[in-house]
């Protein structure tokens, strides 16, 4: 859409009330600087900088330092950003204010940090703040003063923060397109640095599996586990170029449209080829990733399975269930009872024979939780289900049921999944089982979302009594949501049991429910891609970067607050909740564009005149 800016002279003539804001508000910048200083002090004082200082991600810069640099850069960028103006108003011209805004924020943040350093250098506070040890400032390696004595260290910190803030602020002097390219470059460099072990493993894996000459790339990109100078240059250049290409003026037609226009036979060919490549890639994936990364994926996959289930309950049907782990536990225990030769039943079945019973048991559990809470909504529902989750754990733990479930000793020697004579032993083989179930769950989710019951759930989420008045039996809709959600969690539990090989009640505590809930909230409620990304990032990443483990819930909390404030619809929102603003215009535009495109296609010889509303 062409921006129809009102020319400056017109605005000037119209008087002060119509004038747009003059550029960066310096008081806001100073405030952002204070926040940045607070964040930097916080991560230094709670030990994150130190804990993350062992992993170098870019050259000699450790993850801990990268975090501090990121704070200065990020807040500098925000502080240098011109205020948003209403559509149709002229945006303020970029100028020195952007730079000053960034500089100011950086300087304030640096000053806050400097005060903090002086304080912890003078006073012994370790008794209260356990993580503020002498190695931060007083003794080698003097992490926070970058190895310098206090005086020069303070100057360095202050200078660095100011410079970085200013640098980030000046990004706003660039045209949007170039700024995006720079941001993309920074983002990808950080990502490649952070995921060094993954990238190296993948490149090596591709070489051994596919005999492509990819391993040397890893040697060029990385030195000693961190991005090398050449690596930074290459990654940054690639990301920069790709971003510029993507935003280059000529907009190509979307791939989907172009595919649709191919003749039938070649379209089928394309589809088969894509499918074959995908299957081949997935078949080789665990081999390429190696044992450790496959294990990480498997763990993320089990949580993804649960998240897809909870997404049906919370995202689709709007029933906030905080005791979701109960269904996970039911699936795991059912599996363990049936396939472990040492369980109380002592059956020792094969995994697949247990699957129908997992479905049955989870469905029954879903009904058992769903029925008593039929009349509850919102907060009350959340509290009661939270209680149910704990009850389930305590039942599995109890002495009363110990003869069946084994109490605290749990159930051990759960057999591996077998496919014919092949045992899925080890993370790489197990990946296929996880993948199969995740695929199934994803398909079920999509199929149900776009169906009679999916609409009933959505209606119920929006307004329960109106849904009932419009013909949706709320009892049936609620119970079916609980049952389907329980089944998917049950599958997750079944896989979990065979993956670990032994299960204990303490694996099924409320933290699991909360983690799954965070995954769907951050990923994007009711959005399958959001849930997938959420599970990979929020569950996979902490497994990958072990240092995160200790700070996992701190990060979850920070992320939740950030999302609630800035992006309540989630990271990848479902289409329905995506565009809050201008959606009417956009829908109209999209419709007009599509119609115009169809007309053009229908009549190639005499192209339809451009629609007035289109440009």
């Amino acid at each position, binding site marked *: 859409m062409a921006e129809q800016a009102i020319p400056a002279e017109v605005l000037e003539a119209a008087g002060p009330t119509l004038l747009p804001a003059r550029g960066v508000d310096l008081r806001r910048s100073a405030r952002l600087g204070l926040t940045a200083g607070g964040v930097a002090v916080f991560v230094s004082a709670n030990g994150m900088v130190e804990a993350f200082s062992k992993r170098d991600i870019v050259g000699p810069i450790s993850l801990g330092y990268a975090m501090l640099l990121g704070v200065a850069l990020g807040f500098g960028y925000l502080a240098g950003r011109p205020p948003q103006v209403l559509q149709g108003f002229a945006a303020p011209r970029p100028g020195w204010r952007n730079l000053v805004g960034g500089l100011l924020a950086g300087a304030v943040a640096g000053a806050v940090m400097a005060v903090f350093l002086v304080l912890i250098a003078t006073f012994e506070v370790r008794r209260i703040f356990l993580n503020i040890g002498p190695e931060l400032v007083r003794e080698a390696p003097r992490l926070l003063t970058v190895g310098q004595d206090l005086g020069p260290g303070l100057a360095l910190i202050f200078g660095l923060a100011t410079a970085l803030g200013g640098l980030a602020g000046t990004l706003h002097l660039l045209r949007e397109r170039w700024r995006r390219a720079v941001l993309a470059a920074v983002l990808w460099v950080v990502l490649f640095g952070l995921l060094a072990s993954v990238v190296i493993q993948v490149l090596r894996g591709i070489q051994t599996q596919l005999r492509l000459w990819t391993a040397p790339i890893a040697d060029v990109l990385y030195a000693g586990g961190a991005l090398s100078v050449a690596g930074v240059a290459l990654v940054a250049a690639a990301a920069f170029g790709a971003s510029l290409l993507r935003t280059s003026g000529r907009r190509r037609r979307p791939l989907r449209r172009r595919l649709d226009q191919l003749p039938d036979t070649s379209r089928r060919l394309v589809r088969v080829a894509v499918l074959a490549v995908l299957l081949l890639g997935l078949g080789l994936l665990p081999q390429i990733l190696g044992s450790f990364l496959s294990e990480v994926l498997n763990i993320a996959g089990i949580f993804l399975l649960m998240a897809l289930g909870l997404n049906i309950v919370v995202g689709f049907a709007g029933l906030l269930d905080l005791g979701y782990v109960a269904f996970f536990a039911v699936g795991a225990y059912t599996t363990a009872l049936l396939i472990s030769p040492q369980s109380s039943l002592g059956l020792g079945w094969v995994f697949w024979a247990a699957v129908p019973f997992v479905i049955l048991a989870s469905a029954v559990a879903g009904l058992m939780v769903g029925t008593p809470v039929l009349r509850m909504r919102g907060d009350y529902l959340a509290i009661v289900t939270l209680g149910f989750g704990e009850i389930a754990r305590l039942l599995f733990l109890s002495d009363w049921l110990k003869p069946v479930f084994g109490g605290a000793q749990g159930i051990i020697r759960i057999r591996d999944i077998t496919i014919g004579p092949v045992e899925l032993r080890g993370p790489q083989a197990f990946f296929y089982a996880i993948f199969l179930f995740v695929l199934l769950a994803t398909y079920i989710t999509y*199929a149900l979302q776009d169906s009679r019951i999916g*609409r009933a759930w959505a209606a119920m989420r929006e307004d329960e009594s109106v849904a009932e*008045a*419009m013909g*949706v039996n709320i009892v049936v809709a609620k119970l079916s949501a609980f049952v389907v959600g329980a089944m998917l969690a049950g599958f997750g539990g079944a896989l979990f049991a065979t993956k670990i090989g032994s299960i204990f009640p303490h694996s099924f505590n409320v933290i699991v429910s909360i983690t799954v809930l965070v995954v769907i909230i951050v990923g994007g409620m009711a959005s399958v891609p959001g849930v997938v990304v959420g599970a990979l990032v929020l569950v996979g990443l902490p497994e990958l970067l072990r240092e995160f483990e200790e700070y996992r819930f701190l990060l979850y909390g920070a992320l939740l607050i950030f999302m609630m404030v800035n992006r309540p619809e989630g990271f990848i929102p479902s289409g*329905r909740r995506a565009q809050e603003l201008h959606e009417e215009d956009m829908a109209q535009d999209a*419709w*007009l564009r599509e119609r115009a495109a169809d007309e053009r296609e229908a009549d190639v010889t005499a192209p339809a005149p451009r629609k007035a509303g289109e440009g």
Partner: protein
Amino acid sequence: MALLGIRGLTKDFGGIRAVNGLDLDVDAGQIISVIGPNGAGKTTLFNLITGMAPVDAGEIALDGHDIVGLRPSQILGLGIARTFQNVRLFPEMTVRENVMVARHCRTRSGMLTAILRLPSFRREEAQTRRRAEDALAFFGARLVGWRLETPARSLSYANRRRLEIARAIASDPRLLLLDEPTAGMNPQETQELTGLIHKLRDRTGIAIVLIEHDMRVVKGISERVVVLDYGQKIADGTYREVAGNERVIEAYLGRRATQA
């Protein structure tokens, strides 16, 4: 036999008797206006008929069958659909989806057929879409085209009212209850809507009961007018009969005098 027969219907809210021993018959194909001062119990009457509020005493029969105590979804299935005084749509769902929900009670496919995408499911789904779009087309071009895909909350107020009516129509009712359908519409829109309500009845033969405050609408649209006051029926007849009724004038004027 009347389509809807109400006998001795009573509803208390704490100390307030919102509906008080009400008798009312609605014949098939009739257009009836229910009028009365604020708080007379009109909306409560609709809530009782549709099962959204429990009945304290009395009978409600559809085609001679008692419907008291049924779930609202069952009552919709039997053929009574309604709209709400304070428009209640599914705001985040699209216009089309809003109407498709109303087909829930007229469709059967369960979760398994949906997951397996059986031909019966596809057929039913296509039919649901078509029926929804037909219902929306009742309002001409106002709710179709690009608007089908927009969330209901982005509609203008008048269009939300129309969408709510379309949603009710889509459930194939035999009796349609409209709670102040023209509230918030300008005179021209009001006129258009009254025309459409007539057209709907003529085309489908369904009975329509509407609560209305605008006396011009009441006069123009209704074959019968029922007046409620303090939960009781104080008049029942043609517009002319009711307009000349002593008690009605008193109810309206008396109330107005004390309010002023």
